[in-house]
């Protein structure tokens, strides 16, 4: 289990796994290297919204594109909690509770699942931390699905985003069934308010999995240099 930095990224230490608590924003490339070099391992990546969408945003796009067989769990609480409450890419534009952005960010929130779909993620789901069993089932399914699986978990930060307590009543199951139709999924995602849960999209793109099969010796490589 590979994580970045943030409240959510402490999770490998709480799990009975081989883990790597890496750098802020860099969990996905660490995990990509591990899985490509060791395709026999099951690799789960965990992080938060700041880690994954802001400092690690470029890696997020390319991990979706590359489609290495990883399961990416983003515990999204719409805030930087570990640094005591600053706006993250998923924070609403008018949230003015941070000393860093006293007038709100004035910036539209990032739409992680729509971006994941556009960038080519092969499995897209949203879960809710208030439903641990349902979340566990989705993560297990994501891990079984080949390719890059994106699981957004709405995870309340009761300290810096106390209004998220309302998610107990506002989060609900999505009113659609899982689709493999990108256009349908895109339409649905863009119309949704971000509080519907479920497995929203399952794709079947080819997985990035290079063969690790030797066909020559090092001495063979040298022959190209011989005069």
């Amino acid at each position, binding site marked *: 289990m590979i994580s970045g930095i943030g409240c959510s990224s402490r999770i490998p230490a709480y799990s009975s796994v*081989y883990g790597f608590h890496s750098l802020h924003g860099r969990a996905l490339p660490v995990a990509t290297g591990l899985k490509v070099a060791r395709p026999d391992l099951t690799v789960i990546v965990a992080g938060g919204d700041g880690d994954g969408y802001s400092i690690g945003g470029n890696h997020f796009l390319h991990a979706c594109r590359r489609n290495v067989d990883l399961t990416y769990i983003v515990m999204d609480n719409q805030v930087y909690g570990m640094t005591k409450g600053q706006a993250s890419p998923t924070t609403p534009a008018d949230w003015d509770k941070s000393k860093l952005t006293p007038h709100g960010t004035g910036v539209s929130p990032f739409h992680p699942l729509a971006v994941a779909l556009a960038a080519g993620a092969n499995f897209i789901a949203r879960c809710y931390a208030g439903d641990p069993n349902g979340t566990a089932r989705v993560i297990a399914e994501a891990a079984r699905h080949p390719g890059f699986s994106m699981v957004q978990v709405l995870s309340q930060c009761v300290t810096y985003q106390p209004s998220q307590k309302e998610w107990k009543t506002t989060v609900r199951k999505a009113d659609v069934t899982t689709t493999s139709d990108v256009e349908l999924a895109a339409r649905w995602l863009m119309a949704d308010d971000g509080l519907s849960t479920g497995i929203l999209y399952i794709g079947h793109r080819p997985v990035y999995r290079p063969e690790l099969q030797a066909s020559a010796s090092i001495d063979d490589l040298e022959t190209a240099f011989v005069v």
Partner: protein
Amino acid sequence: MAGDTVSIAITGAGGAGVMTAAQMLLDAAATAGLYGLMARSSGPQIRGGEVAAFLRLGAQPVNCLDDRFDLMVALDWLNVERFAGEIVLDADSLVLCDEGAGEPPPRIVASGARLVSLPLQETVKSLPGGRLNMLGLGLLTGLTGLAEEEVGKVVAKALKKRGQEVLDAGLAGVGAGIALVAAVDAAACRLPEGSRGDARWNISGNEAAGLGAVRGGVRFVAAYPITPATEILEWLAPNLEKVGGVLVQAEDELASINMIIGGSFGGIPSLTATSGPGLALMMESLGLAVASETPIVVIDVMRGGPSTGIPTKSEQSDLNIALYGLHGDAPHIVTAARSIADCQFTAQWSVHLAEQLQVPVIVLTDQSLGQSRAIIDRPADLTFISRRETGSAGVADYRRYALTASGVSAMAVPGMAIGEYVADGLEHAISGRPSSAAEDHAAQLDKRARKLELFDYGQHWADVEGEASLCVLTWGSCTGPAREACARAQARGIATRLISLRLLAPAQEERFAAAIDGVDRLLIVEQSHSKQFYRYLRAHYDLPRNVRL
């Protein structure tokens, strides 16, 4: 010393095929049993624009360019002034140019070199499918006295896949070139006889570095292209695959360095290659590799900096960032290759050090090594027997960051039973659990420093040649020219000592003190404007009083 050699500069507009012609000349010299070196120079746009190829050929191994040129072949005069500082001509030099190309630039005329104008373009136009660079290859063949047959073989090998017509035109161009210079007096350009000895290689520094990495056991590489390091990665992509490894193209250098940290965490020796700007981006992650004790190798093929700088030219100005760029107290290893052949040795040794000590190693080479090509004796096979300490499965009470006497602790490989641990850049206790306790920080800092301090780097840390009290102290690609300067001084009765460092960090105080013992005059040779090497030496070593830079 390289003995009797012939130095040749070929210039022309980008796309004229200067590099192809120079490469073919080097190949032909190699098959004729000669040694040689070919370096390239181009404008910052990398593709297109003006280019120059520099060759030095001889009967003995060639380790650097000469300080003057015997022959310059100017296919045209386009922007040739831009290379004037690099192409040193004198009254003994011969310059061949096109009689239709206009007046030679004033700096060429001022050098006093003998100018010979020939109808180059006119001849090319008279040949069906004629190419200026093939005519140029013919000129060089004629002037150097290489056998037309040898050159023809090289041309055939290169052009045969492009069809008989192209090949015939190429060979006709070579023939026409030889005929054009038949009457030119060029005794100084005549190559010596070649010899057939042991196996020789035709290899670039970047290829040699890639081969060294594979020989060292690297089987995972993450890559982001950057001049002048890209050829390492381009060589590795197909060749790594053949030996069961894999290369991934990353989205940026932040990704490439972290991918190799991931691959290495998985137990697979891992490497990336970059140049200064990329190395700057990798610095935070190198700190992670230090703290988490994850072995990785980063080859930095240095170029002119800072910022985009001069991507196509060589400099030794990343020494500071390689040594001191990491945040925190971050002991790591910095090595440097001294020649094209040494790119292989140093890369292979560096993989060995990284794996043995579970530490990041930065390997410094530069554009003048990486993008140059040489005919060398096949390097000796190297075997470093040690490998990563992984412990054994099922050990009770496994502690990833245990405080051992050597400082090296077993690094379990994911998948091994009862070895689960969390690698961490957060300071940690011996178990890997995060800890900000003062005693854990002190113990882990000591551990990470100790493993580098106690390791025996053997004789590979430097070359020390001669025992004189006059010493030339250098590193990296300056070693070739410094060694030749010492040999020339020796030929004039001036004894010298040469010290060239391969291991820059950790500093080897005792070995250095022994190497410099008895020196009273010291000349330090480096290629950085801010005297980075000199300041490094001052920081770590006692130097004699009488020092010149």
